[in-house]
């Protein structure tokens, strides 16, 4: 599919590089950039965030809340700032002691095993950097990585950088076919990446589905990278299950978490990777050779937040209990609104996002600047420019090979203040009424 002959070393891009390529740059005439960054310079978030800002669009695109983090966590941050000088200086590189200790305590209770705070946890600059460390540490040239589509687009870029990307799957009914999945495993399969609750679909993998994946991982001796940043956001009584807690899986799973998504503070960029020491130690090597330390005060505040949640876990007071309830209603409200204007939403079981089928809309997209782009990209740009509403095209979450089959969905983030959702609704209703008036 997109494997090419290995030519230049451990990092490769997907396209072969012409040997004699030279860029004329300023007064430098040699080729400057490393091959590893070829083909990954374009980034949909950079492009669309800029467009949304330019057109002052109501932003249901990028996934961040527009309400504040809970006060107990904001207060913890302010308190941390005023404690001794050490809050403003380097802390332990692999994770601030207070934070790794409470994370170990908290998740030991959930996973059902003793997690070592110093050996089994690495704190990172957001879950994004945890993913980066995981791939850099474990995926070599020639390794295959199974990624389930639709996937958080960064995973694709990571695999592309490392030239480790192997076959990927798609699933029309939003389930994995056991036969199809089994057929993707080969002796070169190093890892499988799952994301549950899933971005953008909102699917929450059932225990049975995870069990099936686990059996294949064990049979083929494959590492499981489980991105669980939305783990607290499940609706309609759906339960989030940690694949690392299944028999035989702790030893081969890296579980990724995010304080940003947990405490609605995406701008703090605190995340973590959790797993068996013999795998985590390699992530630590990447971390110590790339950023080394993460910001101290933010880690302290997240630690205080988790300690509080540990104490009230399972009760009504818990933020992990209240946030999904709060979002449950917003999710239904947005779904109703989308339905009423002719879009077909897919109600998510978990996460921040909802995708909707736009094929009924029949919009005339004549913008010449987007001529060669997939339909959903063109639609999203049109929606920003003409209607002032920002969303994300779902084909961005598919591999190039499958993109054409998935051009008719757009993604909405509903983790927004009611006023934002109202503004979005107004735009959609106005548009829908406008269309009706034409006939």
């Amino acid at each position, binding site marked *: 599919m997109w494997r090419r002959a290995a030519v230049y070393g451990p990092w490769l891009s997907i396209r072969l590089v012409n040997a004699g390529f030279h860029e004329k740059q300023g007064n430098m005439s040699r080729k*400057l*950039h490393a091959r590893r960054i070829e083909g990954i310079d374009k980034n949909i978030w950079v492009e669309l965030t800029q467009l949304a800002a330019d057109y002052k669009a109501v932003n249901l695109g990028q996934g961040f809340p527009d309400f504040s983090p809970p006060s107990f966590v904001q207060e913890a*941050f302010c308190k941390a700032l005023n404690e001794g000088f050490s809050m403003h200086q380097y802390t332990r590189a692999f994770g601030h002691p207070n934070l790794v200790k409470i994370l170990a305590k908290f998740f030991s209770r959930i996973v059902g095993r003793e997690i070592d705070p110093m050996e089994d946890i690495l704190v990172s600059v957001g879950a994004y950097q945890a993913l980066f460390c995981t791939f850099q540490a474990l995926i070599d040239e020639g390794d295959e990585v199974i990624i389930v589509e639709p996937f958080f687009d960064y995973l694709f870029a990571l695999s592309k950088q490392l030239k480790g990307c192997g076959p990927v799957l798609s699933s029309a009914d939003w389930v994995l076919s056991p036969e199809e999945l089994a057929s993707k495993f080969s002796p070169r399969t190093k890892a499988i990446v799952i994301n549950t609750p899933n971005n953008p679909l909102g699917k929450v993998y059932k225990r049975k589905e995870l069990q099936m994946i686990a059996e294949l991982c064990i049979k083929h001796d494959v590492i499981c990278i489980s991105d669980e940043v939305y783990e607290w956001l499940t609706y309609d009584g759906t339960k989030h299950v940690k694949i690392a807690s299944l028999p*035989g899986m702790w030893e081969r799973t890296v579980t990724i978490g995010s304080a940003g998504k947990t405490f609605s503070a995406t701008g703090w960029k605190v995340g973590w990777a959790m797993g068996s020491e013999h795998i985590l130690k390699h992530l630590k090597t990447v971390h110590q050779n790339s950023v080394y330390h993460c910001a101290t005060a*933010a880690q302290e505040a997240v630690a205080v937040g988790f300690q509080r949640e540990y104490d009230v876990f399972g009760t009504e007071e818990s933020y992990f209990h209240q946030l999904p309830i709060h979002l449950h209603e917003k999710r239904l409200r947005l779904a109703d609104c989308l339905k009423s204007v002719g879009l077909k939403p897919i109600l998510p079981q978990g996460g921040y996002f909802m995708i909707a089928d736009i094929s009924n809309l029949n919009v005339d997209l004549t913008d010449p600047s987007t001529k060669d782009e997939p339909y959903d990209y063109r639609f999203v740009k049109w929606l920003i420019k003409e209607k002032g509403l920002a969303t994300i095209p779902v084909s961005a979450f598919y591999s190039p090979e499958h993109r054409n089959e998935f051009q008719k969905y757009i993604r909405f983030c509903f983790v927004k203040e009611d006023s934002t959702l109202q503004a979005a609704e107004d735009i959609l209703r106005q548009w829908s009424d406008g269309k009706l008036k034409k006939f």
Partner: protein
Amino acid sequence: MRTSYKMASIKHKNTKRIEGLDKNVWVAFTSVAADPSIVNLGQGYPDIPPPSYVKEGLAQAAMVDRLNQYTRGFGHPTLVKALSKVYGKVYDRQLDPFKEILVTVGGYGSLFSTMQALVEEGDEVIIIEPFFDCYVPMVKMAGGKPVLIPLRLKSSSAASSVSSADWVLDQEELASKFNSKTKAIIINTPNNPIGKIFSRSELQAIADLCIKHDTLCISDEVYEWLVYKGHEHVKIATLPGMWDRTITIGSAGKTFSVTGWKLGWSIGPEHLIKHLQTVMQNSLYTCPTPLQEAVGQGLLRDFELMGKPDCYFTSLALELEGKRDRMAAMLRQTGMTPVVPEGGYFMIADVTALNQDLSHMGDDEPYDYKFVKWMIKEKKLASIPVTAFVGEDSVKQFEKYIRLCFIKQESTLDAAEAILKSWNKD
């Protein structure tokens, strides 16, 4: 349980790119910091508080909803605009905040983004010894080959009073390190650990070679404001022909005494910065928002005061100069020979004259590693061995030196002085 289950699988070993990069000097010595009975002049961070307006700026930022969510990936607007103002003045050129600046996780993150963006297998990168220890592993992780060249003590310097200016590069030796495979040279000025500030003519010599061989220059200037009386920090990027080929790295941690905020920046021409931005968007995407807002506000405040004594960039240097001189005097009194730094917050000292017999400690480590361990144990004073900052071939040249950090409160320096004064009394 399935049949082919294995515990510690061969598939779980590290990738080739990080082979051999797991050990580092800090792992060996940072646990020392936890012991309160030890006076820690080892790892380089202040135990003095940051300026209050910078802390307050952060507290204020944390109360604004928007500032607790993702900001612009390549750098929060308030911060990049403030950086372009401050550095626009320093460089005396218009800096595009969005295209010529990238905000990273500390100066460390800038170094990483630069290496990943611009260095690959087949490239050689010249590194001057002694060097901040991460340069070599980062070049290796990017697939490049480090080519080392040591600073050498001028034989003309008086034995009793050595300055970091007495450590220089041999020009012929430097020229010999450049070849067609040389992708970049890394310079660090003011230098960690020696504290040398490269003079304009020294930088010109490096610039001439960069231009002649068409190489890049990576200039780590995190200590740029910590310049002592009689010396001037010169930015190599301002020399003719150098802007287009230089990435200059700065640090909020070192600028505002907030190493735990982990914010830094790379400044350079768009055609280079864009590649660093690609690495950024594919590694951690964005840095923390409220911290960036606070640093931006702090920079704006100090921009207005630039050149005046109450500008933090100036006042911190003045405060540290006193500590520098105090530390040098303490070390001399004990019999060590300090190298008085022109800049930065480290000082190295030659311990040869103490004639400390460490033969009981075996011979599998350089002398300075043994000395540092002995000093921690016997004198309860922590420092860092300077050979941690050099390659194997230069160990003999540097193994009688230890590095001490003097950005410490007076009470810490008092405690260090008490130890040094009673050194010979045991």
